[in-house]
């Protein structure tokens, strides 16, 4: 029996959701819509009495003050066209799940298998629209046809047929659970076809390694003993494809690189990861000696460092680019709730204390046509922002730091970086919290959500470029509430010591999580028939690799399992025993009594020889723009303030709860009217203590056009100077590297592979050099190496991008510094020297140039200066501090001034300059993006102590904070080169994205 409940707003109730849609249609699609109204629809496929139906409709579903309900009677009226949008079968419907639970409370009985509630939304349009217009609204604004379905009806037909035709998006599939064998005794072409058509993302070499494994008579003998034949099952092939995917195995970072530099010097690098990233941490830790604060690096889901004697900090930053390209909302939502599981699944499990997010998009105002399957940058922007909003806010984790970077090439794939930090007691039940251990005989337990077809091949497809035929199934929608319930339960189970090991079910699903856990203890025996499914019709291989969300995998000892299960029950969390861990040396998967996969753990994890990668570095040359000297740069400054990369992101940031948990100290926005852009974030994780956690980040993809070595060096330096700017201590700070690259592997698709690979090598060289100089251990990170879009001859590759995130400590949050100038009369200092380094700058970009003179980081001087500055901060000598980055001194001065509500008078002749004196000019001093600089203001009475503390470092007093609300800059020639009011500057800075 199917019933349809429609919830409409009363005529006098305002429909904000509809108003937003209307704004979008007018601004974005430029269609003449006069009025939009919305109706919520619940399609109930369950046996319910009329009485029960109306109790549900009038109770939980309807707010009597503003809404009306109708059952099986169409509610829509007064419209020209109607669009109803609902999910496709199998797509996560969170509202539907909550609606089902609400009905179960009303009736007092659970739904039967197969019964369900499905939600959809009706949009009613009034205005001079055509059917085509309405279809455009549906497909370009309301509906992502990948995961949603829609009906369009004009008013007449709607009433003629008595409303919308009933649709129940139920997954209908008979429970076949088929296992098939794949014959690998085939030609190379055939092997490649198997890989391609199965979305296995396995190369020919890898297919042949698998082929060879199955030819081994000893392997065959073992297989026969468990009732398998000589051919691999689809379960085995899929399991290997997940484990060996670029996404899970990081083959490029593990591969052997044959590198040739610009001088023709050749060298061989055995694993970029080992040679640079791991080595950096190892050497930094050796130097720190007894001051080493790293507890667990690289081996777990996230890095762990010491916060103090009683607490440990956990941090991880992930990317979720490919899914966000297909379904921006679901992709980004899954990105944030997904990365939440990393710190939660690290060590014995951490309480989550903050999120960070960094997005890279193409211009949301982009007007030209796009290749098929690519969504408009504006839709990606909208969807990603909303996905992270829902994921972060609903999880009760403050989003404290982030940024949005724009570049045309991100049209190919947006980058969605989501980070989460956690905190855990240093010791839990007498053991260090960052350690965990599986004992053979421990039970394999899955907790949280059920398994469906969602997210199948996520890991493998994100290891390939995006194409027309990228699989629909790769898309998932996160469910923050199911995950929150699970975390509420698991954190309590942790404290009672009810499990021995916990890890996240992310990419590759059970195949990866249980596969890796088997690596810990030497094997497993798991029955897929026991796994709880969302709906019937999944084959065993789908159960094994599904990336259905909100799941953790645990190892629970047989003594604890009963208490674990009963506690889960009382918290409303589903947990299932799937088998046990062993030391058999085999990844042994059954379905019922039949073995469906039997793979040596050693083959899964060490069976893959390193990739051989070619890399050749040829420094590019770009046209060097002729700088025309101007008498007045005010116009340039205002234009820069309005540019996408510099302008205020407040319209996005206000949508993120950055204060939940009550510990926010330095917020994303600060200053006299709470709208100045903070450099970093400071939070108190333990409300009883004034010790704080500081986080910041750096990212500068534009410099990759010139040299990824300097792109990386500048990203790290920007991250650290942001961290230092808010008061972070240099004695306890660690870094995370997130590489997002375009495919650097030489192939027909990628003829310029060696250059892109050389870019990766140079980035890693910089990572090592700079982190060592800054004593920054790398504690975790991630790489996403296939950020290209390919459609026939159109290929869009992202600029090689490194996000460098930092986490550290501030002894006392009451010493934290913000970027807004505080009072007239304060002296303005510029720390660090400025050079003619406009290459890759926002100023050049504004003029349509790249240039060549990329900023070069002087790590030795910078580090000494950062240390001295931190001393001054601790001594309470600093009134404000703002980092100089995009737009250089002019932009930093403008931001500090209008944020503080005071003017500033600066004299460029007092700015310290480095390099060729012939190139010194006002343009350079105003807009050059030379690294490692801070703009600082100091009270006159603190002047002497500040200068004394900074002595021996490059810094100069370049002006003063003024009463008059003006930024006035005197040029080298003695004339005023910038003069504009705070209000004008702030308006220029705020207007660009205000309405998005």
């Amino acid at each position: 029996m199917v019933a349809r409940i429609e919830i409409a707003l009363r005529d006098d109730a305002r429909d904000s959701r509809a108003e937003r849609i209307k704004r979008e249609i007018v601004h974005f699609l430029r269609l003449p819509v006069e009025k939009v109204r919305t109706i919520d629809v619940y399609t109930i496929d369950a046996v319910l009495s009329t009485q029960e139906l109306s109790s549900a409709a009038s109770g939980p579903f309807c707010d009597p003050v503003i809404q009306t309900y109708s059952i099986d009677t169409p509610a829509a009226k007064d419209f020209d066209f109607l669009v109803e949008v609902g999910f496709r079968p199998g797509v996560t419907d969170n509202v539907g799940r909550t609606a089902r639970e609400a009905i179960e409370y009303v009736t007092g009985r659970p739904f039967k298998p197969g019964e369900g509630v499905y939600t959809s939304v009706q949009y009613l349009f009034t205005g001079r629209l055509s059917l085509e217009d309405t279809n455009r609204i549906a497909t370009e604004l309301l509906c992502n046809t990948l995961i949603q379905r829609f009906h369009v009806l004009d008013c007449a037909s709607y009433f003629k047929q008595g409303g919308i035709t009933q649709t129940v998006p139920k997954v209908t599939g008979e429970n076949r659970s088929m296992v098939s064998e794949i014959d690998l005794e085939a030609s190379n072409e055939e092997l490649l076809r198997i890989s391609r058509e199965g979305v296995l993302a396995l190369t020919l070499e890898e297919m042949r390694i698998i082929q060879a494994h199955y030819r081994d008579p000893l392997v065959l003998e073992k297989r026969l003993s468990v009732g398998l034949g000589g051919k691999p099952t689809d379960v085995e092939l899929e399991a290997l494809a997940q484990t060996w995917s670029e996404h899970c195995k990081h083959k490029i970072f593990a591969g052997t690189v044959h590198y040739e530099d610009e001088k023709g010097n050749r060298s061989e690098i055995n694993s970029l990861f080992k040679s640079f990233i791991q080595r950096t941490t190892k050497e930094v830790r050796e130097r720190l000696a007894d001051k080493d604060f790293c507890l667990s690096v690289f081996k777990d889901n996230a890095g762990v460092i010491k916060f103090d004697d009683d607490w440990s900090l956990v941090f991880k930053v992930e990317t979720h680019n490919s899914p966000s390209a297909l379904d921006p909302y679901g992709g980004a939502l899954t990105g944030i709730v997904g990365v939440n599981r990393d710190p939660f699944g690290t060590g014995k499990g951490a309480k989550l204390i903050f999120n960070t997010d960094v997005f890279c998009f193409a211009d949301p105002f982009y007007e030209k046509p796009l290749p098929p399957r690519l969504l408009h940058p504006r839709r990606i922007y909208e969807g990603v922002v909303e996905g992270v909003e829902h994921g972060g806010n609903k999880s009760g984790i403050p989003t404290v730091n982030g940024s949005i970077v724009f570049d045309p090439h991100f049209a190919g794939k947006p980058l969605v970086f989501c980070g989460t930090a956690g905190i855990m007691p240093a010791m839990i039940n007498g053991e260090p919290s960052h350690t965990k251990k599986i004992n053979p005989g421990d039970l394999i337990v899955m907790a949280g959500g059920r398994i469906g077809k969602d997210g199948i091949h996520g890991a493998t497809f994100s290891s390939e470029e995006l194409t027309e035929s990228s699989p629909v199934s790769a898309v998932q929608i996160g469910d923050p509430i199911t995950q929150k319930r699970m975390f509420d339960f698991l954190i309590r189970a942790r404290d009672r010591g009810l499990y021995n090991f916990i890890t996240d079910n992310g990419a590759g699903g059970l195949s990866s999580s249980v596969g890796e856990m088997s690596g810990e203890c030497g094997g497993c025996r798991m029955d897929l028939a026991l796994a709880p499914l969302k709906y019937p019709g999944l084959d065993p291989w789908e159960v094994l690799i599904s990336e259905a969300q909100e799941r953790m995998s645990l190892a629970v000892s047989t003594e604890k399992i009963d208490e674990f299960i009963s506690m889960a029950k009382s918290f409303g969390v589903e947990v299932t025993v799937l088998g046990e861990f062993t030391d058999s040396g085999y990844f042994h998967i059954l379905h019922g009594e039949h073995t469906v996969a039997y793979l040596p753990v050693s083959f899964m994890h060490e069976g893959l020889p390193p990739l051989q990668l070619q890399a050749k570095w040829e420094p590019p040359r770009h046209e060097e723009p002729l700088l025309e000297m101007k008498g007045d740069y005010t116009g340039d400054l205002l234009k820069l303030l309005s540019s996408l990369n510099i302008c205020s992101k407040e319209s996005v940031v206000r949508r993120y709860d950055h204060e939940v948990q009550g510990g926010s100290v330095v917020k994303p926005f600060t200053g006299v009217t709470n709208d100045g852009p903070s450099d970093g974030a400071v939070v108190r994780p333990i409300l009883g203590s004034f010790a704080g956690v500081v986080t910041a980040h750096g990212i500068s993809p534009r410099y990759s056009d010139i040299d990824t070595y300097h792109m990386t060096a500048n990203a790290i330096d920007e991250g650290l100077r942001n961290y230092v700017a808010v008061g972070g201590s240099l004695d306890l700070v660690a870094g995370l590297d997130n590489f997002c690259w375009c495919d650097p592997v030489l192939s027909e698709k990628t003829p310029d592979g060696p250059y892109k690979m050389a870019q990766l090598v140079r980035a890693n060289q910089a990572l090592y050099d700079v982190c060592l100089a800054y004593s920054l251990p790398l504690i975790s990170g991630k790489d996403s190496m296939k950020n290209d879009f390919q459609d026939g001859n159109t290929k869009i590759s992202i600029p090689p991008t490194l996000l460098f995130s930092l986490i550290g400590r501030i002894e006392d949050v009451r010493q934290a510094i913000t970027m807004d100038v505080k009072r007239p009369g304060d002296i303005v200092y510029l720390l660090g020297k400025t050079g003619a380094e406009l290459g890759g700058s926002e100023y050049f970009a504004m003029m349509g140039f790249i240039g060549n003179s990329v900023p070069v980081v002087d790590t030795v001087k910078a580090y000494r200066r950062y240390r001295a500055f931190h001393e001054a901060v601790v001594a309470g000598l600093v009134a404000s501090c703002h980092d100089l980055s995009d737009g250089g001194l002019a932009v930093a001065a403008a931001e500090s001034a209008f944020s503080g509500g005071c003017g500033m008078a600066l004299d460029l002749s007092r700015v310290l300059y480095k390099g060729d004196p012939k190139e010194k000019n006002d343009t350079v001093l105003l807009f050059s993006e030379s690294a490692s600089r801070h703009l600082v203001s100091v009270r006159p009475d603190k002047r002497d102590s500040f200068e004394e503390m900074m002595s021996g470092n490059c810094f100069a007093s370049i002006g003063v904070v003024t009463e008059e609300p003006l930024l006035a800059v005197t040029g080298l020639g003695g004339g005023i080169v910038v003069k504009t009011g705070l209000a004008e500057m702030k308006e220029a800075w705020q207007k660009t994205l205000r309405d998005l």
Partner: protein
Amino acid sequence: MKKTKAIVITGNGTNCEMEAANACRLAGFDEADIVHISELLEGKVRLDDYHFLNLTGGFLDGDDLGSAKAQANRLKYAQVEGANEHLIDQLMRFIADAKPILGVCNGFQLMIKMGLLPAFNGNYLDQVATLTFNDCGRFQDRWVYLKNNPASPSIFTKGIEKGIYLPIRHGEGKFVAASPEVLKEIEQRNLAVLKYSDPAFSAPTMEFPLNPNGSVNAIAGLCDATGRLMGLMPHPEAFHHRTNHPRWTREDLPEEGDGLIIFRNAVEYVKANLL
């Protein structure tokens, strides 16, 4: 001397339980327990053993059916195991025992939608108002000035001079009354405790962003006629120390945040009336 005991209910999406308990302790409650709703439903914990109930902020059930709707439904129907009663019976007894209840953000939404506020004539299960989507159509995190109504019966706002400054963090905070009569009665009885106002707390405002959601009559907080039940959209527990203030690095502020007075008044009330 008996101990003053506060309870903070958590589970199914509440997010502010820790800072709410922290605020209770800072304000002087001897005990502030964070209790998962499952512990109440299994009868392991009873509301009767506490003096002060916190219904705190978050996204109950994801606000999927409209903010707090699913939880309102759960509390209405859910049985307490082993006891011959529903959770709602314990809640009604709590109110009958003259014990104070504070609902913040999602907790305020819950109280309004259950009918706990404004509860004319002690009718605690009759919804006559609601909190719905902000006029701006977006979730907002920003700080707001709240003008206090000194004539209100609320026990929570005693001693607030002109007003307080607190953060709001919600997408559904627009207060709407079912009818002009309801609104009139709320105003006449001075049940609108706190209203969004200008920085000087001189007058209520409908101007965005000072009034961040378009609430009718700028109503940010509401109490019942007894003054013992109060709900508000802004988060008092999130301003417990000056470093929570968005401008603490540039203004001279008292060590203690504006929000604590609400909890301090609760503990004073408990000491004076319930021990």
